[in-house]
């Protein structure tokens, strides 16, 4: 999924001291906006609002923001956003009047264009958003935008674009100014991940804030560290997708000196510690929620501490062709010696693109036969259908995943239809008719995961059908006849692909086929098909 407007984090720092904890004299407010709704010509996003909630959770758990200071807005309208910014400004102004410094974090996840963010069918111009946010009299304002082309927002007055990820905010500490963190450049698209159930940028930003981004090991993740972590991980994760690499941008106009801390993972009561010697692609999954808490590449050399909520977690570490599976209850250090290890095929991408975008299916299907003018004619001519009037066949389907939910491809199928026969009265001579049909068709399939490796699918196919009959005549000669016609199929079913089998799966489904491709010499047509049950073996790679 692509976000038409990228996340933009604009950090406006005004006379910023070090980021305050909850008990600091500096008040911290977070206005978090998430919108799945797409505007005209835009598909709905799937995880923007979830991302907003996750950001609120991490800021509450690790960012020192009290629940009362966190305002989460989903399904927003422009007026609602304006209203919440106004109220935020009033609270900050009250603090200022009381001599209390304040810090504001504004997060937006949703659709956007180069000149506005899209809130369903309405737009909020970036210029207006900028003006309203900067009008809030906070000591420090951080703006994070996760949307396509969100880099366009960073044209903040006076902001100096960073050259690359090596930008360090340390030299600007204690300076007032503006900083903008955006999920992509002004011309790029931002992407969501079906596997992460999040946008790549927000997921990596939050993993960084949970501790993976703590480069210097001081127990807190600074704005600079969060940016560098998000930059690297997002670029790595998106490099192999169809859309291409996504570059997180960071621009700031800061005055003063001092490190701006965004989270304090060391203060968390529960954490998963990846030891110094551990190396490999690492995935932390909440076992009960079945959600990916963190996915990161852990380099050897220094331990990484990832703060998590108390609970049970499974940590998967893939290195080369080995996969270590570690169970952790309530956090703790991953001890590879105590993890189960299995061999895997190194085919998965690191969160980029689709895990197995190509699938081959071999299917068997069985069903009945339909009655029509052709079969009525056979009956009139004295033929009788075989006792078990079953049709059955095999098909080979190739599919390519084109979006998280959609697959496209083609199929080849061969089907044998129930035979017909008759005995010539007054003799032992018989006439036996066999019918078969062959199909080549394009396939479009929608798949919706429903959990446990099971997906619900619906499929349409259309193409060319070739019908063939062989009639063994009373003279013992066989007369072949080949005709053609359109072929259609609609079906639905379940696809099961357990992770343990690495791409091998199975499907069971139902389909209705209609292929009027068998024709006789006197103008009757038989529509091969009808209702069929199907079973498939699948292999994805």
């Amino acid at each position, binding site marked *: 999924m692509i976000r038409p407007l990228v996340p933009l984090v604009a950090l406006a720092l005004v006379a910023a001291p070090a980021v305050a904890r909850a008990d600091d004299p500096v008040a911290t407010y977070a206005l978090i906006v998430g919108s799945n709704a797409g505007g005209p010509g835009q598909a709905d996003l799937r995880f923007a609002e979830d991302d907003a909630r996750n950001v609120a959770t991490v800021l509450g758990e690790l960012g020192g923001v009290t629940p009362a200071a966190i305002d989460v807005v989903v399904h927003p309208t422009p007026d609602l956003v304006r209203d919440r910014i106004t109220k935020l400004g009033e609270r900050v102004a009250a603090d200022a009047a009381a001599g209390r410094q304040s810090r504001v974090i504004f997060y937006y996840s949703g659709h956007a264009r180069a000149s506005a963010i899209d809130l369903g069918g309405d737009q909020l111009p970036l210029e207006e958003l900028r003006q309203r946010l900067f009008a809030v009299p906070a000591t420090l304002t951080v703006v994070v935008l996760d949307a396509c082309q969100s880099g366009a927002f960073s044209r903040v007055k006076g902001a100096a674009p960073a050259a690359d990820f090596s930008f360090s905010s340390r030299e600007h500490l204690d300076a007032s100014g503006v900083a903008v963190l955006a999920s992509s450049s002004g011309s790029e698209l931002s992407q969501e991940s079906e596997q992460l159930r999040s946008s790549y940028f927000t997921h990596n930003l939050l993993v960084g804030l949970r501790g993976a981004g703590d480069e210097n090991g001081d127990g807190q993740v600074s704005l600079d560290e969060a940016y560098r972590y998000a930059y690297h991980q997002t670029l790595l994760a998106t490099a192999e997708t169809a859309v291409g690499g996504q570059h997180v941008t960071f621009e700031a106009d800061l005055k003063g000196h001092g490190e701006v801390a965004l989270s304090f993972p060391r203060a968390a009561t529960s954490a998963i510690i990846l030891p110094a010697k551990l190396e490999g692609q690492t995935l932390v999954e909440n076992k009960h929620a079945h959600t990916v808490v963190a996915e990161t590449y852990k380099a050897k050399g220094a331990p990484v501490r990832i703060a998590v909520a108390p609970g049970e977690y499974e940590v998967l570490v893939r290195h080369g062709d080995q996969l270590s599976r570690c169970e952790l209850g309530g956090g703790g250090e991953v001890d590879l010696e105590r993890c189960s290890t299995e061999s895997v095929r190194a085919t998965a991408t690191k969160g980029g693109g689709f895990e197995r975008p190509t699938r081959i299916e071999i299917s068997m299907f069985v069903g009945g036969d339909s009655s029509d003018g052709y079969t009525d004619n056979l009956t009139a001519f004295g033929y009788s259908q075989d006792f078990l009037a079953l049709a059955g066949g095999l098909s080979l389907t190739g599919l390519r995943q084109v979006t998280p939910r959609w697959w496209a491809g083609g199929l080849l199928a061969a089907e044998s239809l129930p035979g017909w026969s008759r005995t010539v*009265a007054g*003799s032992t001579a018989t006439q036996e008719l066999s019918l078969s049909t062959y199909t080549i068709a394009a396939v479009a399939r929608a798949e919706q995961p429903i959990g446990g490796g099971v997906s619900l699918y619906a499929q349409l196919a259309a193409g060319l059908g070739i019908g063939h009959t062989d009639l063994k005549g009373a003279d013992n000669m066989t007369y072949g*006849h080949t005709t053609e016609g359109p072929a259609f199929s609609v079906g639905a079913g379940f696809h099961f692909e357990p992770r343990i089998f690495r791409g091998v799966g199975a499907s069971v489904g139902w389909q209705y086929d209609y292929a009027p491709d068998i024709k*006789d010499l006197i103008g009757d047509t038989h529509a091969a098909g009808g209702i069929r049950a199907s079973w498939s073996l699948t292999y994805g790679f």
Partner: protein
Amino acid sequence: MKSKFASLLLLAAAASQLGSTDCGQVLRDPGFDLWCGDSLCAWQLERGNIARVPTWDAGDPGVSFVGDDVAIAQLSPVTSADGTCIKYQMITNIDDNATVWLNIDVEGDGSFEYKQQVGASTWQPVAYHLYVQAPFDGIQFELAKTGPGNAVFAQIQVTIDDDANCSSQRPIIAAPRPDGAVCGVDSDCRSSLCSASQYGICESCDSTLGTVCPSGQVCGYESPTSSVLAASYACVADGAKQLAENCVLDEECATGICNGVCSTCITSAGCPNGETCGQAWTTPNADGTVRSIGPSVCAPNSSLQVAGAPCASDDDCASSSCVGTVRSQCDDGRACATAADCPFDTEPNENGLQNGPCNTVGVQGGSCQ
């Protein structure tokens, strides 16, 4: 002598009443699928020319009537014992300008009791019912086309149906029947004689009823004129039948001896030089019974007969040459020229619609060279 003949006649008459169908089908090869070269194997070409043409599939042929006057026919052994309500279904492709008829000849004696025009059609199945009044021994179905236009028959399935389905049909009544046909009353017969003593068979004379034949004739065996008819009685010339011809009275035979078939002896006492009187030819069945009926001759198949002596086969003669008329006969002993002259198999199987064989068995009226 007459008692033996009467038994044979009885059997033949009874057999003719059994009728024959194949799972209800009355006609052999109703789909015109059996071709012997350019001819239909099971249908008789009466007039004109026919051709094999594809119907719904090239492997399921039909018959095309070529020319302005074409007819094919098939005599079915269906009898009133099988049923009197007959349903037929046809699938045809007939041009508007073609005139096509289905003609019904009860008993197959050449007199058509019913004619129905078959309308133009393009492979559309049509069905009709016929009610044929009992009794009858068989029906000849004739398909005929006159005039221009194409006509193709793909199917004519004729089956026995429930009488209830013919309740509204006007009965088809057979014309006065020929000798050998079943009958109920005298008026059923052309001869006006329905013999009760012969289980309701039309015949031309009946000695038991005191029929008097013209001078020089006797009331003797009359061969059936159709495969569905039985043998009967008629006035025949005295001593005119040759050795091996069917007979009922000694007077019919030139040899003066009738043993069901004109013979030269009845017992060995009638043979010279201690020769044995025996059957000139028999064909044993698998169960040991004798299938063919042949004349009784002295020293059959012994190559003892001298030149000029009567014989029934070459093996009878010292010269190994018996000169006369080739004798062919059906399994029931009646003379035949082709299988079409022989009765149908009475078993309800795939041969039930097929005539029995016509086998060459020996020589009729022969004498040794």
